[in-house]
């Protein structure tokens, strides 16, 4: 499959990972088997990493959760820079994302998920702040998610068109 079509396939899967190989094949004009083989190859190459569902947990009543963004200032180490501490932070299961930032007064941006504010506070005070390289932390709690991964979570556009038009 050529690169343009491969890119198209990836966009389609990113949009809806439940789309069947047959359906994708029809849409991009490739046989189903070729689509299946390409997907397998892309998975093997780690181009396709995972097939997640984007869940709006705020709509799930009995799911307590707290999201926090934590700005972390660290002292980089010789030879490994920020990588060593970043990798270490990545291993905590409650950490959902870790980014090295430029232009900010801190170095790493962490996204954390916990069941309660207390759980997040405990993680920050007992696990994160106590790491050798960590100089300081600033924790921001997310109050409401309006858009995530390119998707607006509230007031999704509905089809307002008339049923039949010229």
């Amino acid at each position, binding site marked *: 499959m050529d690169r343009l079509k491969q890119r*198209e396939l990836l966009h*389609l899967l990113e949009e*809806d990972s439940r*789309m069947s190989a047959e*359906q994708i094949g*029809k*849409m*991009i*004009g490739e046989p189903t088997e070729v689509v299946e083989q390409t997907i397998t190859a892309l998975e093997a190459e780690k181009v396709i990493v995972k097939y997640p569902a984007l869940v709006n947990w705020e709509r799930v009543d009995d799911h307590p959760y707290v999201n926090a963004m934590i700005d972390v200032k660290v002292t980089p180490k010789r030879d490994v820079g920020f990588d060593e501490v970043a990798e270490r932070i990545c291993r905590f299961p409650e950490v959902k994302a870790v980014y090295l930032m430029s232009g900010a007064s801190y170095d790493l941006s962490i996204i954390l998920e916990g069941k309660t504010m207390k759980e997040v506070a405990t993680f920050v005070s007992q696990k994160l702040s106590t790491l050798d390289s960590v100089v300081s932390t600033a924790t921001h709690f997310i109050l409401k998610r309006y858009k995530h991964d390119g998707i607006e979570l509230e007031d999704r*556009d509905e*089809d307002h*068109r*008339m*049923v*039949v*038009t*010229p």
Partner: protein
Amino acid sequence: MSTQVKVKNRLSSTVQSLKPSGIRRFFDLAASMEGVISLGVGEPDFVTPWRMREASISSLERGHTAYTSNAGMLPLRVEIQKYLEERFSVSYHPETEILVTVGASEAIDIALRAILDPGDEVLVVEPCYVSYEPVIRLAGGVPVFLKTTMENQFKLTPQELESHITARTKAIIFCYPNNPTGGTMTAEEWKTLLPIIEKHDLMVISDEIYAELTYGRMHDSIAALPGMKDRTILISGFSKAFAMTGWRLGYVCASPDLLAGMLKIHQYTMLCAPTMAQMAALEALRHGRSDMERMIESYRQRRNYVVDGFRQIGLTCHEPDGAFYAFPSVASTGLSSSEFAEKLLMEEKVAVVPGDVFGESGQGHIRCSYATSIEQLKKALERMERLMGRMS
């Protein structure tokens, strides 16, 4: 009763003679039902991209609420000139050859009114947009229909064109890429028609509202061919490519003498197109290309999906190269377009538009818009398959 008669008499005989749109009748039927999956919609399913909406809101905030010049804001006309030149290799002077209108619909109206005298004949390439015939009649003209067929990918042939020309023929009007068939014409195919157009000194009204929605190749404008610019009135707008149907913004390009005529009608009727819509259009042309390309890619994928689907369930369907309509044949069912569409709506709650509302040569076909989500298309195909299964 006597009041009704009196009111009726006040209407002009031309207006009285116009038939109500076949689409409207079908719309009323579909709108009265719940749970309908609609392939009957002739507009993008995308909301106007935010950057255009934002530009319009911002213009309101800055107080841009006054009239613009009759022909439209000059910066917008300059952008239209650049856009047409870059995309379709046609060049019009922004000050004398481009007029911004209230939708392409107004452009069609003023083009016809500017050139027609009572009794002039206008050739209309069928199947066609439902407004051409009534607008020609309202302008005092007489429509003469040229047929196209699925066997010929709904392209206009020189034979069909020449055989309908009379001493009264003034102009020809068409829409390519075509609503409702999705048919397109290449530069080579246009060239076969040029000697006839020149020989009979025809005016050409080229409705290119779907010009950006072509799949696999660029749109060829007839105005770009040698000698054609001066006899062509090019009409387009922002509705389809930029998902801006409700903004009512189009434009018409023609030689200065023709444009001056159209401008007269425009200034005495519309005065100018809405200012905030013009601001949005300016943004669309300057920065909206990536939004447009994203939508076109999506239409192409859905076209592939739906055309394959029709063929799988036993409906013959040519591959449309443009617009966002498929026009499969339902002749194999033995039903007329309207009978099939009505049966499909009543029994399976899928709304399509009967092909014959777009003219006699659309008989035996249905117009299915694929400007809707894949999920909806999938469900619609499943329901159509069920109906076909019961009928076989």
